[in-house]
């Protein structure tokens, strides 16, 4: 019995080991299959992933290129815009400068004109006053001369004046020979 028992126990252990080995083998086989399948799936997935990745990469690159193009285009546009804005700014500044120059010149001209007009008016007034004063002075001198001269000339002076005048008639004497 004991031997049987031992046998049974040994057989049981052997069977168990066998079973375990069998199970192990089965599981191992299954595992191998599963691993193989998994590897295949992994490979497929990997391939798919790689393809997807490749595709994505290509798409990304294309997009990048597109973006780059757009960026370049945007750069170009912005440069042009900047140039336009700058040109517009410069034009406006130039126009404003020109306008301010013109305004300044006009203001200067106007101011000069006013100054000249004022000067001319002042000069005219001065001349007019000077003329009036001179005329008054001349009238005074002549009226005094008229009052003083007749008594101052005397008979001899009067005679001399007349004789001198008559002697000047010679140049016109020809006309008197045959008067009209």
């Amino acid at each position, binding site marked *: 019995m004991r031997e049987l028992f031992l046998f049974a126990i040994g057989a049981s252990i052997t069977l168990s080991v066998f079973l375990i080995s069998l199970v192990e083998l089965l599981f191992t086989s299954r595992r191998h299959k599963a691993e193989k399948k998994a590897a295949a799936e992994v490979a497929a997935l990997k391939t798919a992933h790689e393809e997807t990745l490749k595709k994505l990469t290509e798409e990304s690159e294309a997009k990048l290129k597109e973006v780059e193009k757009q960026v370049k285009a945007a750069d170009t546009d912005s440069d042009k815009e900047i140039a336009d804005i700058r040109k517009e700014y410069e034009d406006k500044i130039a126009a404003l400068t020109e306008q301010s120059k013109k305004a300044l010149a006009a203001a200067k001209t106007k101011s000069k004109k006013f100054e000249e007009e004022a000067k001319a008016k002042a000069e005219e007034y001065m001349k007019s006053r000077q003329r009036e004063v*001179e005329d008054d002075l001349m009238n005074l001198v002549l009226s005094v001369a008229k009052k003083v001269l*007749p008594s101052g000339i005397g008979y001899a002076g009067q005679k001399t004046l*007349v004789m001198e005048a*008559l002697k000047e008639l010679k140049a016109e004497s020809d006309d008197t020979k045959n008067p009209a």
Partner: protein
Amino acid sequence: MSLDYSLAANQVLQKFYLADQIDKLHLSLVSLLETVNQGEMELMLEQTPKTLREKVGYVKKVMEQVQSEELRMKLLEILDSGDLEFFDSKHFPDFLHAMQRRAEAIRVIKITVAIEFKDKDLHQMVSTLSTQLGRPVALEVTVDPTLIGGVIVRYGNYITDYSLRTRFTQFRSDWKQMSKQ
């Protein structure tokens, strides 16, 4: 004839220097020529019954009526010298015509002066004018004290103003013109 009528005419005309004298001379010559033309003098001088004294008296009476003092004095002077022949119809008209021609040749010059001049000075002026104008002249003198001095001479259509008044006016005008510029 003892007296040259041409010389006599010149002697008489030397005394004329005023326009009034020339006017009177013209009237006197016209009147004497009229008397001569009427033949009254000729009749009287050629009447043999009349004495020399009567003839001289008649001529003297006629000559005394002559308006021009200078002509009258000269004619009476000739008569007083006893030259009765001068007044006959052959010589006297020639003398009168000669006088008339010379009187017509005298040009009357009108002058305006500031003061009244003495006769000798007026003579001098006439002499100067005659020389200047190359013909005998007589003066018609007007006194205008406003002239101040100098003279205004009018002859024919010409007026020449040498008065101080005009000189002053001209001077004032020139002055005003100059000051305007």
